[in-house]
């Protein structure tokens, strides 16, 4: 990960080892996106992803096995996002077009690719927007993070049957949403 010029004033405080730096750089995008899909806006996702990494790195003994640590980090990330939603009792999907920096157009993509990617993103975000918070979280943890239903139930603090119901409702709602858009 390359550092932007604006961040150089923080370089005096390095991560304490190469392993930690690798751990952060390898998982940052995944963790950010997981949280972003749950909370629905970039600013909160950024704050919560940072919080998740700080929590993880404060327990350095867990970083011995980086694969396990990545899994463990996903747990911290989803818990942090769920706790945030519980605390705030809100979900907001901001209009990304309205946000100022650091949003810029992606370089090196053809206009066709840009349109296609934009369509996919818009379809996904609109689809996730019609779900309840619990349906969306259950669906993301199960289908994107490949977490077993039992673990999702534990994360959402509810029964496995309830989680199955959330997952099924979310999939059916998304399917209908895609069919409507196609029509």
């Amino acid at each position, binding site marked *: 990960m390359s550092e932007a010029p604006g961040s150089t004033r*923080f370089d005096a405080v390095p991560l304490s080892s190469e392993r930690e730096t690798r751990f952060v750089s390898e998982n940052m995008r995944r963790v950010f996106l997981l949280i972003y899909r749950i909370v629905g806006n970039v600013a909160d996702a950024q704050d919560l992803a940072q919080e998740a990494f700080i929590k993880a790195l404060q327990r350095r003994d867990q970083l011995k096995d980086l694969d396990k640590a990545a899994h463990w980090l996903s747990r911290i990330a989803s818990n942090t996002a769920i706790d945030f939603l519980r605390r705030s009792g809100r979900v907001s999907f901001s209009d990304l077009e309205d946000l100022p920096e650091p949003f810029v157009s992606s370089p090196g993509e053809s206009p066709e690719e840009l349109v296609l990617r934009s369509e996919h993103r818009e379809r996904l975000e609109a689809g996730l927007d019609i779900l309840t918070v619990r349906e969306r979280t259950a669906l993301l943890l199960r289908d994107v993070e490949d977490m077993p239903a039992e673990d999702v139930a534990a994360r959402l603090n509810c029964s496995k049957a309830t989680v199955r119901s959330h997952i*099924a409702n979310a999939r059916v709602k998304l399917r209908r949403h895609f069919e409507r858009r196609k029509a």
Partner: protein
Amino acid sequence: MSRHAREIDLALYAAGDMSLWNRISVGLHTANCEQCKARVQAYRTDRERLKQDASELPAGLNWERLAAEMTANIRVGLAAGECVAPRGRKRVVAGWWPVAAVAGTVMMLSAAWWLNLPASDTQSISHAMRGLVHSRTVVADEQPVIEASSGGIKLSENGSELQVSQGGGARPKAISVSTEGSASARYIDSDTDQITITSVMNVQ
């Protein structure tokens, strides 16, 4: 097939999120129902798309810049945490109570072990320990010594002596000492030619 499977069952079946019995039931149905099979396939495709689309960054996001900013903020957060942490950590590590706790646990376990030993074992261990304590005294004890001389036979042990003296002008004719702790001497009186045999034995 007159009835189709429920939509939520097909949605769950698509990713194996059903109990075994329901999975078999829906599996048997979809094997014979083209419409339901197509629905299951559509759910599987949605799942793949969701996974793929969810890995896309939000539109127009400058990831390089955001990642750098996040990394810097994480560094600051960790440094702030380090500033606060040491006091709490020292309190946990330092102090006499961990040593006292360990010593107490060891004593408790030793007492429990001792109490659970059979009586014969405890007696033999006690005896052995007493032996260890008094070992210097035992080593210092004198062994019984039997001496035969022209004056008589003497038994010495732990500073005490028992002496059988042969008085007069008797002279020892023969003195014998056995390795089993006895000594004897034969004396002949020069005046009367009487023979006196004196024996001392150490019986333990």
